[in-house]
Structure formats: structure tokens, C-alpha cells
């Protein structure tokens, strides 16, 4: 890669356009600044020449896997699936992080809301959000849909599944202990 200072002003201008950096004319006083910006952009490894085919393919792949995953992991992946839909233009990197973060953060409030074992509700709320994932099968149906092993997740899939089951088991325990009414009647 030839050094930036050897390039002509026009070349610098073209490079800035390729990286999508907004800029004015490349004159003596602005050249330094633009060279710095280009260096930063190159260091970040931004896509200088956007390859639309590649990203498009990736997006489709992403969407497909999320559709598969929804039945097994209900609101967790369902939410991240919605995320996928609404932001198709993101980088793959941002994608992975964002979806795993969103699925993680969204699953928590969902759990706290459905306090004591109204498990069907947990599914209704997300399904009303997104009609695409309207079919929300029961949690314990254990559909082992072939999960496309996307090992590039922040938190591995199996761990999320285990966590989900653990919380569900806990809720079931709590629910079951609350069912005993007889002691109250006895006191009466």
C-alpha cells in the first residue's frame, strides 16, 4: 500500500469517498486531516469497496437460522430475530454482538414480568409483537430443531438453553409450592 502522502489530491478524495467519509476539497491545510482519517478508516478495516452480495448473503443466512431457532428458544431468539429484520444493513460483526446482547438483555425483563409461572403469557407477548413468529409452541415440547451451529455467538447456544430450562424449573418449583391451600383452610 503506497503511502498516502504520495497520492494526489484527487486520489485522496476518491479514497475518502470509497470509505464513505464526508469531506471537502483536499487542499494544503486539509490534507493532513484527511490522511489521518483515511489511516483510521483503514486501521478499522472498514469495507472500502462495499460488497453487497456478500452482506446480502450473510443476512439471508442469519434470517434463516433465526427462523429455525424461534421454536426452541421462544422469546430469546424471537426478539433477536426481530432485531435482524429491522436492521438489515448492519455489519456482520455488529450483527453478532448486537443480536446476542439483545437476546440476552431482552430475555431478562421477560422473565421478571411473568412472575409466577404464567408461562403461556411469556409467549403471547412476544408473538403479538411479531406476527411472523406467531406460532409459539409450548416450551417443554423440546423440539430439537437442527440448530445451525453458529459458534460465533457471545454466549453459546447450549448455555442459553440450559439457563432457560433452569429458570423454568425454578419457576415451576415456586409455582408448585404455592398451590397448597389446605393449611389456610385449617387455620380458618
Amino acid at each position, binding site marked *: 500500500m503506497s503511502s498516502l502522502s504520495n497520492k494526489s489530491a484527487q486520489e485522496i478524495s476518491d479514497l475518502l469517498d470509497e470509505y464513505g467519509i*464526508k*469531506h*471537502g*476539497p483536499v*487542499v494544503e*491545510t*486539509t490534507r*493532513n*486531516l484527511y490522511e*489521518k*482519517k483515511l489511516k483510521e478508516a483503514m486501521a478499522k478495516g472498514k469495507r472500502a469497496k462495499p460488497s453487497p452480495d456478500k452482506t446480502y448473503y450473510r443476512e439471508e443466512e442469519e434470517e434463516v437460522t433465526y427462523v429455525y431457532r424461534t421454536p426452541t428458544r421462544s422469546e430469546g431468539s424471537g426478539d433477536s430475530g426481530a432485531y435482524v429484520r429491522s436492521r438489515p444493513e448492519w455489519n456482520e460483526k455488529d450483527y453478532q454482538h448486537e443480536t446476542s446482547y439483545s437476546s440476552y438483555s431482552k430475555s431478562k425483563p421477560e422473565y421478571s414480568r411473568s412472575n409466577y409461572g404464567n408461562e403461556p403469557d411469556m409467549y403471547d407477548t412476544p408473538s403479538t409483537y411479531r406476527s411472523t413468529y406467531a406460532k409459539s409452541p409450548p416450551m417443554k415440547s423440546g423440539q430439537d430443531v437442527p440448530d445451525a451451529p453458529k459458534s460465533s455467538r457471545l454466549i453459546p447456544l447450549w448455555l442459553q438453553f440450559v439457563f432457560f430450562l433452569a429458570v423454568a424449573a425454578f419457576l415451576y418449583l415456586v409455582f408448585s409450592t404455592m398451590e397448597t391451600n389446605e393449611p389456610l383452610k385449617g387455620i380458618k
Partner: protein
Amino acid sequence: MSSTSQKHKDFVAEPMGEKPVMALAGIGEVLGKRLEDKGFDKAYVVLGQFLVLKKDEELFRDWLKDTCGANVKQQGDCYGCLKEWCDAFL
């Protein structure tokens, strides 16, 4: 919108003419000296740079930081000052 300083108000109140670079809001003695050393000895020269950067905030801020080491507040003050001046007189 944050409150503007007296310096800012003074600057945007009239055409800048031959005012020194230190008349700009956010540019004090130290920064002013650094700018002068780089050849930006009058406010209108910095104005020229501001215009060449298409009055873009981010570009101007970056340029100011690189040229004289202005911090975020100083960058903002200078940008705001020049922008308002342009709105009024350009």
C-alpha cells in the same frame, strides 16, 4: 443550547475584519499561539479553513484538535462561534 460566553457574543456581533485568532471563542492564548505558528494568524484564516471543511462540525473539530490540541469544549465553542458568525454574515 448551552449558554454562550461574552467572547462568543462579541465575535458574532459584527464582521470579524482583522480580528486576531484569539478573538475566537474557545481560543485562548495558548491555542492562539499554536494556531499562529501554523500560519493561522487571523480569525478570517480559521474561517477560511472552516469553510473549506464545508462547515462540517466533525471535520472542523478534528482539524482543530489536530492543529492546536483543543479539547472538546474549546472545539465546540470555536465551532459554534464560527457557525453563528457565518449564519449572520456569510
